[in-house]
């Protein structure tokens, strides 16, 4: 029973992490890259605006950071909850 409740808290911590990561994921691509681009048009980057940079490069860099953050966070969480391999 105790193992089960620990698994539940492990799983909900995982879900929270995933939710935060996916909000950022959507914000930099669909947000800054496409829908919110007009709002960022005032910030100029190399002959164009910040939205263009996010669409062509920035989002990719954030995606990378998200995956490595998630791997690091989950490996820590595995150990905290004693479910690591």
């Amino acid at each position, binding site marked *: 029973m105790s193992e089960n409740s620990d*698994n539940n808290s492990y799983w909900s911590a995982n879900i929270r992490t995933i939710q935060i990561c996916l909000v950022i994921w959507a914000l930099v691509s669909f947000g800054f890259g*496409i829908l919110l681009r007009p709002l960022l048009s005032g910030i100029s980057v190399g*002959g164009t605006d910040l939205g263009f940079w996010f*669409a*062509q*490069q920035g989002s*990719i860099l954030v995606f*990378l950071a998200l995956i490595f953050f998630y791997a690091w966070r989950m490996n820590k969480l595995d150990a905290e909850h004693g*479910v690591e*391999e």
Partner: protein
Amino acid sequence: MDQFTVNLLFVGASFALYIGIAIWARAGSTSEFYAAGRGVHPVTNGMATAADWMSAASFISMAGLIAFTGYDNSTYLMGWTGGYVLLALLLAPYLRKFGKFTVSEFIGDRFYSPTARLVAVICLIVASTTYVIGQMTGVGVAFGRFLEVSNDTGLFIGAGVVFAYAVFGGMKGVTYTQVAQYCVLIMAYTIPAVFISLQLTGNPIPALGLFGDHVASGEPLLAKLDQIVRELGFNEYTAHHSDTLNMVLFTLSLMIGTAGLPHVIMRFFTVPKVSDARWSAGWTLIFIALLYLTAPAVGAMARLNITEQFWPNGTSGEAVSVETIENDEAYAWMGTWQKTGLLGWEDKNGDGKIQYYNDANAAMQEKATANGWEGNELTNFNRDILVLANPEIANLPSWVIGLVAAGGLAAALSTAAGLLLAISSAVSHDLLKGQLTPNMSEKSELMSARIAMAVAIAVATYLGLNPPGFAAQTVALAFGLAAASIFPALMMGIFSKRINNKGAVAGMLVGLLVTLLYIFLHKGWFFIPGTNSFTDADPLLGTIQSTSFGAVGAVLNFATAIIVSKMTAAPPKEIQDLVESVRVPRGAGAAVEGH
């Protein structure tokens, strides 16, 4: 030494390397054939997955689509990288914990239903076959140019090479070969980009050069590009012109599709531990990002170079003359590409010059009439040739051109081989051995795997002769199909205990069939040209093009599965326990073959 010989040397040497590795690590047993044992390090696995993933679409086609459209085609960049976030967070670690060889085994077990497994296999085969058609388009372009023959002849030769390659390799051969292929293709992509970036911006890193200053004019590169394409009546490069809804759906469709493609997911079954599956997705994306951060620079710089070649005296000066094109060394690339049938020009007004401009633009039309121009004289510039022609256009040394030819072939071949493996394992392992003839011997399983490969490549070659779009566009259709069918079933299988067998089967069928129907209505039934009822310029539903429909299909899949599951009995206790167990890494162990 002429260019043809140099290309031959580079392509020959790279092939000798791949074949050498394939022989050295030849697949023995069936389990090696599918998943290469389990001793693959996350970094090695990431590199091999990156080679497997970056296909003709990424290498040959994508920068060309960006070059001629600009900002609007950023969708490819975000879509094909953003999918890795979904893969790393939502699928890879759990599927590794589950510990079987194929995606359809997971679906069959989780939804305790041979029907679910069968439907998953069909979804995989449909998506992978569409994907191979796109690859064959790229293979045709690359072989056509490299052997200096027509596109169709290049396609037939390429098909033979891909087949031989996949049959002899198996995945073990393919894993280590793909590490070598990654190295070749990333060098082939970045080295010419570095040269061009130095020429245009003085910055050796193309990704930074893109946002740097254009040396010749002193203006920012992108501002300069915007200005000259505007003067020729084209859309401004950095501006947003396409429909926003379609752009969002297309990006989403590529992202979800990435996380639903069997040949990519399969890679995460081959790492030793669950934590390795998480890191592996990150390593894969690092290796992919090296190309994807360079691609937008390649596109923008190539567009600038091409435009300046046609307007050597600026857009208000004289256009390049036919005589120069035919005789000047700097224009030799036009002659060689003309042979493939993918590049064409015509002096319509007979003034001895080739005017390249947008004749569909009304404002430009006035200027054209005043100057005596009778239409755009660059009559054909296939987007798929841009990356391969790029080093020639920029007048780079011949060894760089040879390297690019080798890289283009590596990209197309590695992915085509990986897909053929996914198709053959779906047919022989899941369909025949899993369902129809469970007592099949290992030997006949391998044989049927090879027959499946031969059939798949024959179909793809036939359809590749009249492809439904440029390589990257056809590949985007495959992603739409994977997004609509496989990804929702996998995700719900892990994140919901309530989705049952009937819900999953109904969801996958609705997602696959509706998306397939939408694609066939726009691209022709079974991609046969002329049998379509709508076009992507004027699609059936609002502004949603067939390449973007995968996201809609995925939503329909989720909705159907949830509704049907709610109306029918919950999954049995042991299935709910199975879901609990894939959620925690402990006890992963080695994967086992299950039927």
